[in-house]
């Protein structure tokens, strides 16, 4: 075919794309977006189908039968899960201004710059071969169409079609993606063009399919009937005979399931360019339908091509183009060329733009900001240079892709290169999916998993391809790296019988996931890591505009919001930010008494920067009316409690003190996080226990707030209650932390030899006076000395103090008596604490050491105490291998007996909570 026709058609097509992009951007600016539409969204997702699909599937089908379908079935199986996964990704990306998958992972794991840079780097390394695959496809399609020789053979770069293709694509991508900077990283024009290309490639491929099936043959019956007579073709019709192992099939499906989420270009179109999360529901079935259609004729074309070109030794990758040419259908061939061009260019443009966003935001800019040369950009606004940086990166990525094509990739089939990339990017999946649903996933865990997974991947897939290209000695593939036989890239640890892709996918994902999970469990979040994990995993709770989120911000006065911001951001900065918020809006802050919902959301975000998002949420909740505080994790409620306390106490305090309070809050957050791994029912109970004092405080404080003229005695009474209740909260928090520490095995036990006589005397010192005040007679019977006991001094004092407090609390009101004794009985020490109060009913006795079992004071019917003291006591005694028992008759008082074995050896903290202790 005439080279000029091809060039005009190709360049004209690219021009048309550019026109569509330009037109749709104009429409978008006029508020009539064509992109904001579920069909366009679904079609843009079809950027998944590249030249690999368009040309490579046929080639794959010629040699391995049905196996080409696996990488389309994977995404099809993933599509229904988008409802859960992709939706969450989109909501997070929108609210957190995520710009790429690297940004997502970095942000989730404590805004780690290093992690973001690493992901960007891996993505570039993994995707460049894949881009080069597209360059290869475009250049070979050009070569076939103009029926010239494959120019690569001549060697001189300027005679190489692919080089020109690369340059044109670079210019085109720069024009597309970097015309102006958009903070949301959205490119309406790009999406419109990609959606259009998806239609073109589908039509082109279906046309060839129909031509082959009904033009060359008389329908599928005829086509397959003829093929059945040829044994080499007939064996493609079943899996066993096509030598496709169950393993390969399964792994291909799995890897492509992950790739549809983690490929940078898919993440870009599916998450970043999404205009409305509701479009997902259409895409979930439209996208699988698209893939079904584009695969429908792959096998007929492969079989038809094989029969038509029988014995000529053509590569199956070329059949789509060669079949129309062989039958003189030049216009059809031109359509195919345009279709292939669509498939390649859409992939190249979107991938390159996605990679350039990553590389500039997560690699170059952080490096520039950190570079030893102070302010290399002369202190100017860095965003002005961002476009230039992006353009340079786009050029570099495409040149690298060309280099890869020219040196390594030219001889490899399309599909293999693509699968190497798929396996590479699927390494992001554990960190990404874990980051979405598993709060315990830490930065160190993500880093360990990613690094290890990528090293394994690099060793098992790209490295052997370099070996095959002659860059490394070939014997590595037989004898292993450095002659170590288990270091064989295709048979790691001697594992055999898997194809290279399954082998690499298995090992890399296994090691990646294993390290991610285990290292996460062994390490802890830092403050920001914790806040981000909380935010990402529970995103619906924090984001407005979705059903599960805080359904509506209630009402809050402008004054309250202002005060809140003043406190945490300083007066000047807060006023400046509020002014900025109202800039360009029809209303002005001075005219408002009630804060608009967007301002409340904005305030929450600003506070989030100062104190962490969870705390900010709760701070805002404290001024927003009609918003009941959220039930949920005890961590939030605990930190919230601290917050409300410091907030209500500090109504008239200086901001400096508040800064301190927020610093403390950070610290508290950190400590409270230690209780992450508790059971839900326990959390619910703690939450419940906390609500009660919070309720009193909140109600009383707001009475005082609403009634400035309250009589002094009332005010004193209310303040007294509020103070007592706040002490109750701190006590509860401390006890919960204490207990959790012991239960999780994180408590440190400082075991020394102790004189228990002296220890009990010390413990009782403080109680003498209290007893005298309350008219309680305290009888202490201690021997002169007992054998030394090995234990934790402070904890054992705690035991005595808890038992004594208990005894005093429940002692007889007027004729109180408490007996404390210690004796050495055989191989144990026996401590008894006896009171003469109301006693404990027999049916309650078995539960008395359980958490939150409260003694009821039957005089008022009221429970006192947190319900944790005895639980802590029980645990301390158990750690010392001792035993604690209670015996009591109602009205006769209670006796607590602690037995401590004198031979107590090493301490074994118990890791399992004892919810069902009584039953076992």
């Amino acid at each position, binding site marked *: 075919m005439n080279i000029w026709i091809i060039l005009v058609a190709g360049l004209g097509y690219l021009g048309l794309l550019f026109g569509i992009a330009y037109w749709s951007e104009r429409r978008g600016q006029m508020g009539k977006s064509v992109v904001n539409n579920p069909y366009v969204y679904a079609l843009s997702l079809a950027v998944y189908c590249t030249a690999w699909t368009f040309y490579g599937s046929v080639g794959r089908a010629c040699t391995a039968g*049905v196996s080409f*379908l696996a990488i389309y*079935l994977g995404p*099809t*199986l*993933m*599509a*229904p*899960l988008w*409802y*859960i996964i992709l*939706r969450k990704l989109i909501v997070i990306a929108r609210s957190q201004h995520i710009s790429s998958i690297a940004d997502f992972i970095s942000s989730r794991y404590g805004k780690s710059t290093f992690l973001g840079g690493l992901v960007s780097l891996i993505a570039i390394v993994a995707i460049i071969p894949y881009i080069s695959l597209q360059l290869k496809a475009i250049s070979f399609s050009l070569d076939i169409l103009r029926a010239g020789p494959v120019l690569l053979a001549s060697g001189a770069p300027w005679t190489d079609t692919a080089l020109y293709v690369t340059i044109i694509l670079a210019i085109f991508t720069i024009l597309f993606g970097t015309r102006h900077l958009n903070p949301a990283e959205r490119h309406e024009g790009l999406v419109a063009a990609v959606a259009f290309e998806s239609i073109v490639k589908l039509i082109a491929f279906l046309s060839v399919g129909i031509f082959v099936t009904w033009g060359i043959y008389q*329908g*599928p*019956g*005829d*086509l*397959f*009937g003829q093929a059945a007579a040829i044994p080499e073709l*007939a064996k493609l*019709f*079943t*899996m*066993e005979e096509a030598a496709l192992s*169950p393993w390969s*099939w*399964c792994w291909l*499906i799995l890897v492509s399931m992950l790739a549809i989420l983690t490929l940078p270009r898919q993440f870009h179109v599916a998450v970043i360019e999404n205009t409305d999360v*509701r479009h997902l*529901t*259409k895409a*979930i*079935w439209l996208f*699988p*339908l698209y893939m*079904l259609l584009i695969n*429908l004729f792959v*096998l007929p074309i492969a079989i038809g091509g094989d029969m038509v070109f029988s014995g000529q030794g053509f590569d199956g990758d070329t059949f789509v183009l060669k079949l129309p040419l062989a039958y003189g259908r030049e216009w059809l061939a031109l359509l195919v060329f345009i279709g292939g061009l669509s498939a390649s260019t859409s992939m190249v443009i979107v991938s390159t733009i996605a990679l350039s966003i990553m590389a500039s935001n997560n690699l170059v800019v952080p490096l520039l900001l950190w570079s030893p040369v102070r302010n290399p950009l002369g202190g100017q606004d860095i965003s002005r240079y961002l476009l230039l940086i992006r353009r340079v990166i786009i050029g570099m990525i495409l040149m690298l892709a060309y280099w890869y094509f020219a040196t390594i990739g030219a001889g490899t089939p399309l599909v293999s290169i693509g699968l190497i990339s798929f396996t590479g990017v699927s390494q992001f999946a554990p960190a990404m999916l874990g980051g979405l649903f598993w709060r315990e996933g830490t930065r160190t865990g993500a880093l360990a998993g990613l690094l290890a997974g990528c090293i394994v991947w690099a060793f098992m897939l790209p490295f052997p391809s370099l070996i095959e290209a002659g860059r490394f000695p070939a014997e590595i593939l037989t004898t292993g790296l450095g002659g170590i036989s288990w270091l064989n890239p295709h048979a790691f640890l001697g594992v055999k019988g898997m194809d290279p892709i399954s082998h690499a996918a298995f090992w890399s994902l296994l090691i990646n996931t294993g390290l991610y999970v285990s290292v996460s469990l062994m390490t802890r979040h830092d403050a920001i890591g914790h806040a981000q994990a909380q935010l990402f995993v529970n995103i619906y709770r924090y984001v407005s505009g*979705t*059903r*599960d989120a805080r359904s509506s911000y209630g009402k809050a006065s402008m004054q309250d919001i202002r005060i809140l911001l003043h406190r945490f951001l300083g007066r000047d900065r807060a006023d400046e930010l509020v002014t900025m918020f109202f800039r360009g809006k029809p209303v002005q802050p001075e005219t408002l008494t009630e804060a608009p919902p967007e301002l409340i959301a904005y305030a929450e975000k600003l506070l989030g920067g100062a104190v962490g998002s969870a705390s900010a949420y709760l701070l805002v909740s404290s001024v927003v009316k009609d918003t009941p505080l959220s039930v949920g994790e005890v961590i939030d409620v605990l930190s919230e409690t601290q917050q409300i306390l410091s907030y209500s106490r500090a109504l008239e305090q200086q901001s400096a003190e508040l800064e301190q309070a927020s610093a403390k809050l950070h610290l508290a957050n950190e400590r409270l996080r230690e209780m992450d791994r508790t059971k839900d029912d326990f959390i619910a109970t703690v939450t419940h226990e906390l609500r009660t004092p919070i309720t009193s405080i909140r109600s009383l404080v707001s009475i005082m707030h609403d009634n400035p003229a309250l009589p002094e005695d009332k005010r004193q009474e209310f303040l007294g209650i509020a103070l007592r209740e706040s002490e109750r909260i701190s006590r509860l928090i401390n006890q919960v932390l204490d207990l959790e520490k012991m239960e999780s095995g994180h408590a440190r036990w400082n075991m020394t030899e102790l004189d228990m006589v002296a220890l009990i005397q010390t413990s009782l010192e403080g109680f003498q006076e209290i007893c005298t005040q309350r008219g309680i007679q305290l009888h202490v019977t201690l021997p002169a000395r007992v054998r030394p006991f090995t234990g934790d001094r402070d904890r054992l004092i705690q035991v005595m103090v808890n038992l004594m407090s208990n005894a005093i609390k429940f002692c007889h009101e007027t004729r109180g008596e408490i007996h404390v004794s210690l004796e050495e009985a055989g191989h144990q020490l026996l401590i008894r604490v006896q009171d003469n109060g109301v006693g404990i009913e027999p049916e309650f006795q078995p539960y008395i050491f359980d958490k939150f079992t409260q003694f009821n004071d039957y005089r008022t019917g009221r429970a006192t105490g947190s319900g944790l003291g005895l639980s802590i006591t029980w645990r301390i005694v158990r750690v010392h291998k001792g035993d604690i028992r209670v015996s009591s008759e109602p009205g006769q008082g209670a006796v607590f007996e602690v037995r401590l074995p004198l031979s107590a050896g090493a301490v074994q903290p118990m890791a399992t909570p004892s919810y069902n202790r009584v039953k076992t």
Partner: protein
Amino acid sequence: MWNHLKGKKLAGISVLFAILLNYPIISIFSQSGYIWGVPRLYASIFMMWLLMIILLILLLETRDTSRRSS
């Protein structure tokens, strides 16, 4: 429009077809023979694929279209 139950049903569809389209179930279809002139394995895969899409449409489109007509 988002609800947990729907999410679970969708996940169920995904798991169901993941099982149907993998070994060992798929080996049932991987036999010689033809359905409407198309090799049995291919015809079966595409029919299951289509069935899955139809299920997705039924689940995602039927109730919503009536409610979102405004």
